[in-house]
């Protein structure tokens, strides 16, 4: 008993003395530690899955924001049938239920040789590192898309709260106004969500501002398979209210909400301009992006970076010829990476894995559909030639499932 108490005091003394010796170490390393950077759909579930697979391993999740404002389902805020608050989550249950240690802050640099991260407040040592940097936007690829034009023509492509701000712009617009939506060339985050967004804006306009018009300017010449499913209904439900124009890449924009494409110049009352994208800033800074300077090549079994050995990269930032970037795929990659890392820690062999990417969408306030693709991660990433596919049409039951999918994946990553 007394020995135990002395031991505790000694430890406490060491902890107090530590900051004097190594002032910058935020959490001294005492046991096997995995650090996960980024608490989005890939990172949060990776942290939780690691703790569930091996409770002996310390898992630190580093995240900028205390409240995460998710994107899936946020488009429904535009349609007026979801509150943005339903898309906000905190990380407290990852701590209380799974023992994930949260560290709020922004990673500024990674030192893979020393296995240490630098944050503004100090450094953080690790044994294994997983990064989920998400995406960064490339406004510089559109002429004139500087700070003023970005404020006038928001992308609303990185958080649910940005989508709520876009809704406010629609509410403030006069009836009879012109809404423009601009989509970049793929690859970009969740193209299906762009079609869903157009549908939700049209749904809102038809009911609240029926003399208005929405023009979707798609840089791609033609819609995806799922896009065609949307369009089959656009022509029926919205006729002249919603117009789709393929092959109309945004070349230039200004703060007066004027937008130039190869074919024309348009002026919108509300402009939602989704710019080209690349892996998140951290990936760029840490040298994780490949020759294309955009995405991070990885081994699709372990998600170890091909650029910087010893760092695992998951989620939208990953490169993959045929990879879709979505919450669902990020979630699946986060879990596969975590289980394989847990295997390596336990001196077992990492396993190739099959995972699905499902994207549910709502056409209006009740009808849903889903596209589903199965992947095999085995060094390379490949699509399975069996299973998967797109819903044959829109249905109320898949509308119910669309809401359940969002609710389920948000619960899963946060509790």
């Amino acid at each position, binding site marked *: 008993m007394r020995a135990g108490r002395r031991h505790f005091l000694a430890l406490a003394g060491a902890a107090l003395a530590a900051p004097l010796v190594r002032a910058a170490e935020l959490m001294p390393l005492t046991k096997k530690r995995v650090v996960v950077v980024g608490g989005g759909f890939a990172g949060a579930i990776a942290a939780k*899955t690691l703790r569930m697979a091996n409770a002996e391993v310390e898992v630190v999740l580093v995240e900028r924001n205390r409240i995460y404002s998710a994107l899936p389902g946020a488009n429904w805020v535009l349609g007026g049938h979801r509150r943005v608050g339903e898309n906000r989550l905190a990380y407290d249950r990852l701590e209380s239920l799974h023992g994930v240690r949260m560290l709020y802050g922004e990673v500024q640099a990674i030192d893979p040789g020393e296995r240490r991260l630098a944050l503004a407040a100090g450094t953080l040592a690790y044994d294994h590192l997983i990064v989920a940097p998400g995406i960064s936007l490339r406004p510089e690829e559109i002429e004139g898309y500087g700070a003023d034009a970005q404020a006038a023509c928001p992308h609303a492509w990185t958080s649910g709260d940005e989508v709520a701000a876009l809704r406010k712009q629609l509410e403030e617009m006069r009836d009879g106004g012109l809404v423009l939506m601009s989509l970049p060339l793929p690859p970009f985050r969740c193209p299906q969500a762009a079609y869903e967004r157009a549908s939700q804006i049209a749904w809102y306009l038809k009911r609240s501002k029926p003399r208005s018009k929405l023009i979707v300017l798609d840089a791609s010449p033609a819609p995806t398979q799922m896009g065609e499913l949307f369009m089959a209904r656009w022509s029926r439900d919205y006729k002249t209210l919603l117009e789709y124009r393929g092959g109309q890449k945004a070349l230039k924009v200004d703060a007066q909400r004027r937008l130039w494409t190869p074919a024309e110049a348009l002026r919108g009352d509300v402009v939602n301009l989704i710019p080209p994208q690349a892996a998140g800033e951290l990936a760029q800074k840490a040298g994780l992006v490949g020759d294309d300077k955009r995405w991070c090549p990885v081994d699709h079994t372990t998600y170890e970076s091909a650029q910087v050995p010893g760092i695992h990269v998951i989620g939208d930032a990953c490169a993959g010829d045929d990879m879709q970037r979505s919450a669902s795929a990020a979630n699946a990659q986060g879990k596969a990476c975590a289980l394989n890392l847990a295997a390596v820690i336990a001196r077992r062999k990492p396993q190739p894995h*099959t995972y*699905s990417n499902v994207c549910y969408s709502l056409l209006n306030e009740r009808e849903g559909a889903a596209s589903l693709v199965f992947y095999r991660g085995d060094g390379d990433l490949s699509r399975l030639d069996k299973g998967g596919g797109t819903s044959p049409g829109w249905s109320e039951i898949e509308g119910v499932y669309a809401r359940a999918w969002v609710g389920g994946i948000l619960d899963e990553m946060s509790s």
Partner: protein
Amino acid sequence: MHRATATTAHSRRPGPGRGWCRCLAAGVLAIALAAPAAAQSRRAKALELGEMLAQSCMACHGTRGTSTQQAVPTIGGQTEAYLNTSMKAYRDGSRPSTIMERIAKAYSSKELGALAIYFSSQPFGRPEQVTDAEKATLGEAVHMRKCNRCHLHSGRDTNEAESPLLAGQKLEYLRRNMDEILAGRRAIEIKMDAALREITREEIDATLHFYASQHGALN
């Protein structure tokens, strides 16, 4: 388990002068052990494969298969036989679905088996649901009269390999499935024919409330 028992039996044998006997005994033991040991190792492999495959399921069906969504069933802790039957019925289209057929078609029978082993090994989580207490009381009586022979112990157990556990299942999911059964869209539930005779819609609904109302740690 087998291994432990065998080792104990072996060590009891007295030593000197009976080497041939020990050899024979060891040989018999090896043969006796080989079958269950191989089965155990196959099961462990299937469980490992199942755990990896199951990750994609959990985004909808919840952590370890305990759903947080009314429209989505809890599959963790469900019986292995029922999970296998369901997925195969989704795969061949004999059970109506939206996305489940497209999901099930991606997996081989071995993979479906591994998924069934993984999810049946997880606890059946039963968080509290909103149910009508009066209906649940009526439903319990209906359950005793009509359902008890297959869905044993208030739906916490099952008598037939392919009958699902029902206690704590999501109410909305139960309703949707019962609607399909009543509409004759579920070939597999022919055996429910007798149970669904001489029963009112109100009684059926009450029974579903009874199953859904059971929550927490159950015996």
